[in-house]
């Protein structure tokens, strides 16, 4: 992985980047009939949980994660991000609240082409983790944000929900609102909550979910963390605070605060 010496980052893990092609002979994979993506996910889980000290930070096709312990500027320079082009960027820095900073525990958390950055805490982590474990996910990165990435992987990729429905499952409407919905919608929401109760993310969060076809911003169902969105021309900006948006786009055309639990879904124009 191309990096450079940066003052302020005295030590770093050994970082390797491989461009790999999943084994083509399906019989060579541990379990036959695995799709490429499932095979990659399994391999990531295996490395993370079985090889002491080794972690996969990034396993996407057209997506990279640059993360570490240090100031954001230093990390950017360390990874030489000026050498990369991208149509979606997410950035994140934090005060390590519950766990001391470590390279694996930094944001984003990625799997395949899913990437999550997160401000807040998932108070329902305990059950979200056990729910994911039932589907073979292994949570090894010692932080709650990891569940968000895997929940999206499960709901969107494996269960085939569209992104909006997945977001609705993760930050579900309250029963009192569901009870007032027209019948079709009520039935749909009731089923969604019954089936995905253990995936409900509870606690304060605002989240940016990046994937190869777009970007989603959403926050918890009672908006315990801020989320602001803005547009200028064909570009969309989202951040916890408006000041962060104005830092890169000083005069946005439209700025708004999405309502609690209501996702802002941006699709790439191709």
């Amino acid at each position, binding site marked *: 992985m191309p990096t450079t010496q940066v003052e302020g980052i005295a030590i770093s893990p050994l970082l390797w980047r491989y461009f790999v092609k999943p084994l083509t002979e399906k019989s060579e994979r541990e379990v036959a009939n695995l799709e490429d993506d499932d095979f990659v996910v399994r391999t990531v889980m295996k490395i993370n949980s079985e090889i002491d000290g080794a972690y996969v930070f990034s396993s996407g096709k057209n997506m990279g994660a640059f993360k570490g312990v240090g100031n954001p500027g230093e990390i950017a320079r360390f990874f030489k991000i000026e050498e990369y082009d991208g149509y979606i960027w997410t950035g994140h820095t934090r005060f390590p*609240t*519950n766990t001391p900073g470590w390279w694996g525990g930094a944001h984003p958390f990625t799997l395949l082409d899913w990437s999550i950055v997160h401000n807040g*805490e998932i*108070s*329902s*982590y*305990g*059950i979200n*983790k*056990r*729910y994911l*474990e*039932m*589907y073979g996910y292994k949570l090894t990165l010692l932080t709650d944000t990891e569940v968000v990435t895997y929940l999206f992987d499960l709901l969107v990729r*494996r*269960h*085939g*929900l*569209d992104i909006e*429905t997945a977001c609705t*499952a993760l930050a*579900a409407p*309250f*029963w*009192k609102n569901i009870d007032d919905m027209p019948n*079709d919608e009520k*039935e*749909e929401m*009731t*089923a*969604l*909550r*019954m*089936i*995905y*109760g*253990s995936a*409900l993310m*509870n*606690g*304060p969060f605002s989240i940016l979910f990046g994937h190869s076809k777009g970007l989603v911003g959403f926050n918890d*169902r*009672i908006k*315990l963390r801020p989320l602001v969105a803005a547009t200028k021309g064909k570009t969309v900006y989202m951040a916890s605070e408006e000041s962060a948006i104005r830092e890169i786009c000083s005069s946005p055309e439209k700025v708004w605060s999405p309502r609690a639990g209501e996702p802002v879904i941006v699709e790439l124009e191709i």
Partner: protein
Amino acid sequence: MFKSLSLPEFLAKIDPVKCIKCKRCINNCGWSVYSWGGDKVLIDTFKCVNCLRCYHYCPEEAITILDNPVKYRKNANWGYYNIRNLKKQADTGGIPLTGMGSDMPYPVLFDSLLIDACQVTNPSIDPLREPMELRTYLGKKPAKLEFEKAKGGKSKLKTKMPPQIKLEMPFIFAPMSYGSISLNAQKTLAIAAKELGIVMNTGEGGLHEDIYPYRSNIIVQVASGRFGVNPDYLNAGVAVEIKIGQGAKPGIGGHLPGEKIPLDIAKTRMIPVGTDAISPAPQHDIYSIEDLRQLIYAIKEATNYTKPVSVKIAAVHNVAAIASGIVRAGADIVYIDGFRGGTGAAPSVIRDHLGIPIEHALAAVDERLRQEGIRNEASIIAAGGIRSSADAAKAIALGADAVALGTSALITMGCTVCGKCYTGNCSWGITTQRPELTVRLDPEVYAERLINLIHAWSHELKEILGALGVNAIESLRGSRERLRGVGLDSHTLDILGVKPAGR
């Protein structure tokens, strides 16, 4: 000659100065402790069970019930109950019976578990300001939700939801049959269940016509005696439960003697008046898991797949594997009854020595179903020793979808857990069929008290959720990360899937 060589357990006393000789104690005592001696109340303290009915109904507070100060010599090995039961057996040659859950001092793991709370990094939520959701659905949940394209390109729900029991809060009333409890006690449960938006369970005694109006809040039970079971009965409630076992008496059946089968109970059970109502130990058509599957599907056929089928088992050593089999056999709900669960009548030796606690059983079952990837296939009801909303919260965190309340519900009706239900003399009119006793239990009045209890527990649960920083019960369900053990050994912690406090 002596009356008995076993000591009276309690000493009933009347203060002669305070007593106004109103004789209420004589009328109120179901066990005939008191009688009129011409000028004063006579006391046969051997009969006293300390149910405290007389105490509450004495207008002068003239009555005291003491532990009998006359005791066998202190002995760490030969305790009171060892000696007493032995003497009783020497008197009669029979099996001493008992009622309610075991009173033996086995450790209660709920009392060694503590719940987490939010501080600083994750905010707690104020249940008085924010919505807190307790609604719970019991039944099979598909693993995923599927949509299909409908006309006009709109997507439409494709997944058919299996039938569910909707509960406004994660509590249900435990099965207690008409026969083991009075009709008034059952009515009290039914009225409260309807008002609260939860369910009661008929137990194995059939469904009395007075309970029919509450059918949308009733689970009907099919046990080994098959009392009162016919297609109408199966379709009468919101779900059907197959009773395999009961926590207080795993592996053994039940026996309601003919004297306790008057016309009304006989009609409800669909048996002749005065015949013994015998529930065999096993269901005579279930000798394997395949047989259970047949019965589950026979019931599903009979109810046209509109009702979830629950299977109730006692918590025994191999409960995890048994529960897994039950789920694979097609059950929508697994009801696990821990060994501390109550009973109307059981041999002491069985109640006090067979089975395992609900905490261990629940933890093992939830974990096993997850390992096998079938936890969504059935809901889990935990029962057998839920004494408070804290116990309920801990059970839910260990993995229960809902908890069942038997003894707790009866306590709101006056029960003092005296444990003498098997005598049929319950002074509170609960576990008796004597009309002069059952009239005391006014269902409307006592339902109010039961509703109060469940409201209070619901408020407490909401406070706990708020302190945990979550606003829906499903975020607590199975979230063992929010529990810590105090003073538990590492094996127990491992079984519970809980870390020790401080870690």
